[in-house]
């Protein structure tokens, strides 16, 4: 081993008083802010062309974003498809998700929906039909529609919020569930509020605003 330089050793150096948390925010010694994960719906309008879905899902796995569901479908504009994502991350993670999504070239706009946005999911639930009357009674409870029946099975379609679907599946569970398929959450903003987010340029401005907001909440709390 050779080399090395002269100068005051580490323990002889002054050290600053400050510190940052793992999200890179300077810690106010009084109030240490940590962001808890929260569940939210993000809606993206994308170019309707092959490869876009792979690009979006690749982004989520590559950047280790926690994703609960992803749905995609065409819109009334034949050049655009809508992707709806349900994610669970702390605020800085949600901020990154939105920015990284916006950054993908085929993504036209991104928006995080308000908590009161309309959210619906559809599930097909196939159960053992030993007791058809009982099954039908449960189906009734959840406004489920019969889609198929055979001597051994009955299949129902349930639509609603994620909570409702989960409750329905749990209740159907008493009959013995053979198979389930769920679409994942689709969502639209309420009333005249538009689901389609700002264009990338508008988004940059709001991203800057949001980044500032984080600072102020960090200091104000």
């Amino acid at each position, binding site marked *: 081993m050779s080399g*090395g330089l002269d*100068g005051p050793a580490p323990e002889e150096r002054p050290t600053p008083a400050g510190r940052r948390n793992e999200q890179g925010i300077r810690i106010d010694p009084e109030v240490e802010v940590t962001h808890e994960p929260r569940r939210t719906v993000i809606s993206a309008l994308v170019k309707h062309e092959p490869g876009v879905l792979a690009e979006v899902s690749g982004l989520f796995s590559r950047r280790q974003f926690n994703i609960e569901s992803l749905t995609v479908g065409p819109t009334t504009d034949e050049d655009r498809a809508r992707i709806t994502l349900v994610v669970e991350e702390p605020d800085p993670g949600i901020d990154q998700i939105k920015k990284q999504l916006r950054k993908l070239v085929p993504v036209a706009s991104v928006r995080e929906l308000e908590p009161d946005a309309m959210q619906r999911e559809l599930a097909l639930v196939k159960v053992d039909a030993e007791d058809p009357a009982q099954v039908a009674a449960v189906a009734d409870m959840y406004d489920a529609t019969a889609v198929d029946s055979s001597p051994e099975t009955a299949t129902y379609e349930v639509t609603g919020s994620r909570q409702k679907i989960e409750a329905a599946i749990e209740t159907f569970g008493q009959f013995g569930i053979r198979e389930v398929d769920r679409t994942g959450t689709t969502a639209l903003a309420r009333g005249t509020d538009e689901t389609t987010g700002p264009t990338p340029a508008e988004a940059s*401005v709001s991203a800057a605003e949001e980044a500032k907001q984080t600072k102020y909440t960090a200091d104000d709390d």
Partner: protein
Amino acid sequence: MSERAATVSPPEEHTEEDAQNEQEPDARSGSEEPTPEPVTSGAQAVVRALENAGVEYAFGVQGGAIMPVYDALYDSDIRHVTMAHEQGAAHAADAYGIVSGEPGVCLATSGPGATNLVTGIADADMDSDPLIALTGQVPTEFVGNDAFQETDTTGVTTPITKENTFAADPDRVGDDVGEAFALANEGRPGPTLVDLPKDVTNADTETEPGEPETPDTYEFQERADPEIVAEAAERLENADRPAMLLGGGVIKGEASETCREFAIEHEIPVITTMPGLGSFPEDHELSMEMAGMHGTGYANMAITHCDTLLAVGTRFDDRLTGGIETFAPDAEVIHVDIDPAEISKNIHADYPLIGDADTVVSQLAEAVESSPEATKWRAQCQQWKSDYSMAYDAPEDEPVRPEFVVEALDEATGDSAIVTTGVGQHQMWACQYWTFTEPRTWVSSHGLGTMGYGLPAAIGARLAADDDQEVVCVDGDGSFLMTMQGLSVAVREDLDITVAVLNNEYIGMVRQWQDAFFEGRHAASDYNWMPEFDKLAEAFGARGFRIDDYDEVADTIAEAVAYDGPSVIDVHIDPEANVYPMVPSGGDNGQFALTEDQL
């Protein structure tokens, strides 16, 4: 450059005067460009799109699926440099893009040609270098059938490109290439790829490509929010301990001059990141040089103790920040970046300024009305510069110190000389001991850390550089071995480059870590034996030199640099030399080690 090199140069641009002196040859009328032949095939549309974009050079390797494109290139003024390996083609194009500021172009066939490009594309992606890769693909009807030399190239490269496209339509293929060009260059630069199935390039089409244009979904912001600019300006005016941190985005955004003027006007000490080397003259007294894992002690002290950090065009990479908790812990951060996703990704921005580096720093310059009063702070910075001087011992009777060789190379070449490197200790010594004074003179693999980058990068840099700029590759023995086949290209094209292999017969950087963190167990880091690089160079047809002692350093370097063609100096350095200062991964920048026992 020598005469042979002139034959590979692109045709000089014709000035009015030239045109008048000419005897009105063939299609030329007055000073107008000759009208190009109309395109008749997809491949010709591809080449026409490159020509429209002003491409002068392309780097690549031939092969079945890309043959139609090469056939169309045959008639073009674009100079194609046949490389010895596709990885080299990507690195050469990448370096061409760094030095010229215009996207470099590389070509490869399908399958192994495309996968050989992958390292170079990933490298460009990590460093936001403008690069276009054109890959051949099996004919559309075979795609998905595991045909001969079929690879899902767009699939493989999606995570490492800014955007890629499978060109499915001969009438659109020219525009696909134009779009790739525009995207590689605009906003935050990056690599793009167009996958070209052979039936599409072979197909008849008369559709001329339009002007290179980004798709309608792509936009970026030029100017930052004036309100935040005003707040940031106020913060700077009132700073007690201001510092600027200039990253690679300063160079890519052509903001070096604006940043320099701003720093000098307000007397703010300037730190650079590794990709930011050259953005601020290191011989200026305000320069604290490079911060980070192997940054100078004074840069790391300044960054650790500043109270206001104006960071421009940097993504706060972990090799720069060390542990997040201890990074610039007292500083309010003003972050200027064109990519909103970089804002508060790693380090929270108190003043997020999204926009083009040059535009935003100009906005700031206008908004800042008075300079911060920081006389004491500046004196402190100067004190650190002397406390943590980079001076080293070089006893004459001992093996040659690598730092000495880097300084000698710097001295033997002009201010505008371009330095390329491999990855390892030699790269760090180049960062530390070369005095960078101009943007676009530092060409290295930062984010990906690709051994073997240096030689092909020197080839690309040479073709983008002015004739009076020297091009020097500071390489490691291990790195050189990875892509040295590129010497055949340098010799064939008669490129005036000087490669200095800092030969320690070690995977030196790994050996240094083993000594520090693995109890000196040299698992697979000791090469034990290396070819004689000077003789190897001669076998390729280049000039070979060798240095063993201090007294050979100056003269040998002078001779190699003066030689008008490729030369390789095998410099036998102190094999045990280590790079200091050092901040271990995730460590505290302010607690950098000056010697191994401080780690």
